[in-house]
């Protein structure tokens, strides 16, 4: 279970998170929506322990991410998969080597077993044929799918997706959403999906949280969010320019 309690974070005096609190049950995926540049990725990085909060806690299966010893944090992170916005593939390694990297470093699988697993994963994300190319030689969509393969290849317990479909064409975006759904069915991971693909991604999440002005405004089921009377939620879901949310 992931529990975020009263999380505060400022950067150079700018308050990004102002007391974020929510919980995710084991095996659930939470869709995190909110305005661009308002701290969704920062929140995700707090959960992964990449950023330390000014105040508040992130508790994962009873472990406080802020207070863990480096070794324990590394052990806990071994259970994580994280899909970065830009993929964050290692640019000095080929696609195959990128996906094989966590297996080579963190498991005792033989090279043959790794090969089988990597090719199977690349086949699932439809990047087969590009395995010997470097990230600079493939398209943005392929980078995102290869990064997804790398994140999922170790079958993580906790998956954090940072806008996995942003900037992709609708077909590939749909393909990636289906892929996340099928992997979730198979691996039963607990996850957070930062997304702007509304309502497309609502099919695969159990709850949706709206981050607004540094706080979680609401956590509800996708159906409840879609039929919400709250003017802020409604404006965000419909994408209307008119409403209480003002863009600066």
């Amino acid at each position, binding site marked *: 279970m992931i529990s975020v309690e009263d999380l505060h974070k400022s950067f150079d005096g700018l308050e990004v998170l102002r007391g974020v609190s929510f919980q995710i049950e084991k095996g659930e995926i939470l869709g995190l929506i909110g305005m661009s540049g308002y701290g969704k990725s920062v929140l995700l990085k707090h959960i*992964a322990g990449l950023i330390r909060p000014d105040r508040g806690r992130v508790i994962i299966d009873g472990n406080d991410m802020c207070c863990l010893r480096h070794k324990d944090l590394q052990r806990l*992170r*071994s259970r994580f998969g994280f899909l970065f916005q830009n993929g*964050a593939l*290692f640019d000095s390694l080929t696609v195959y080597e990128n996906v094989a990297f966590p297996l080579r470093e*963190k498991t005792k699988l033989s090279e043959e077993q790794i090969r089988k697993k990597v090719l199977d994963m690349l086949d699932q994300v439809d990047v087969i044929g590009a395995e010997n190319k470097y990230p600079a030689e493939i398209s943005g969509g392929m980078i995102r799918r290869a990064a997804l393969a790398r994140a999922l290849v170790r079958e993580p317990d906790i998956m954090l997706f940072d806008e996995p479909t942003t900037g992709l064409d609708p077909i590939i975006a749909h393909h990636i959403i289906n892929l996340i759904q099928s992997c979730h069915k198979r691996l039963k991971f607990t996850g957070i999906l930062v997304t702007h693909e509304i309502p497309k991604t609502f099919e695969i999440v159990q709850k949706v949280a709206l981050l607004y002005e540094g706080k979680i405004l609401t956590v509800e089921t996708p159906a409840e969010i879609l039929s919400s009377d709250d003017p802020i939620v409604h404006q965000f879901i419909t994408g209307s320019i008119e409403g209480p949310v003002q863009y600066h």
Partner: protein
Amino acid sequence: MGLFLARAFFYASTTPLKFSNLLKEIQFIGFQSILVIFLTGAFAGMVLGLQGFYTLNRFGSAALLGPMVALSLIKELGPVLTALMVTGRAGSAITAEIGIMRISEQIDALELMGLNPFRYLVVPKLVAGIIALPLLTAIFNVVGILGGYLTGGKLLGVGEGIYFGEMANYVDMQDILGGIYKCLTFGVLITWVCCYKGYYSGFGAEGVSKATTQAVVISSVLILIWDYFMTSILF
């Protein structure tokens, strides 16, 4: 910065180093610098041969050209110029590489795999720097001494026997060891500063560009400052 170096040494001494990673770094910092070291060594030695001959000849001591070139190179110019060349060629690339990995979240990706970025990025470079610098300096010195002979001996007429014979009389083991100690510390200094600057580089291309410039400038200045202290202690 001190803590960064301490962490690098801690992980270097406590975690097993992947041989392939180390070899890759030695190849990059060391092997790929050979050409530039060869060229700078040759011309530094040739200039020393010319200038040394003209100066020593005024005092009727042209026979001491060999020891002068050798001692200048072994004790001072070899380690310092090699370190400056490696800073310019490999140090800047180290900062840019780590800086780009930082801004494109590749270092975060490493951490999220439960891996230690220090072990993967910093330690192999630090160890490779310590190994490569003395070897490159040795090449610089040998090429420089031959360059000095080319100008002082072949061009200006100092005999081969005198040039190399006097060298053997005046250069002792302490001079060579002093030069090696300098190289070892320069190897640490360059990789430390350049890795640190890359690891904590700012955002975007501008951040990496600033970090790279700072890394080269700070390393170069520190090499000269550290060289002064080493010289005053060692010789």
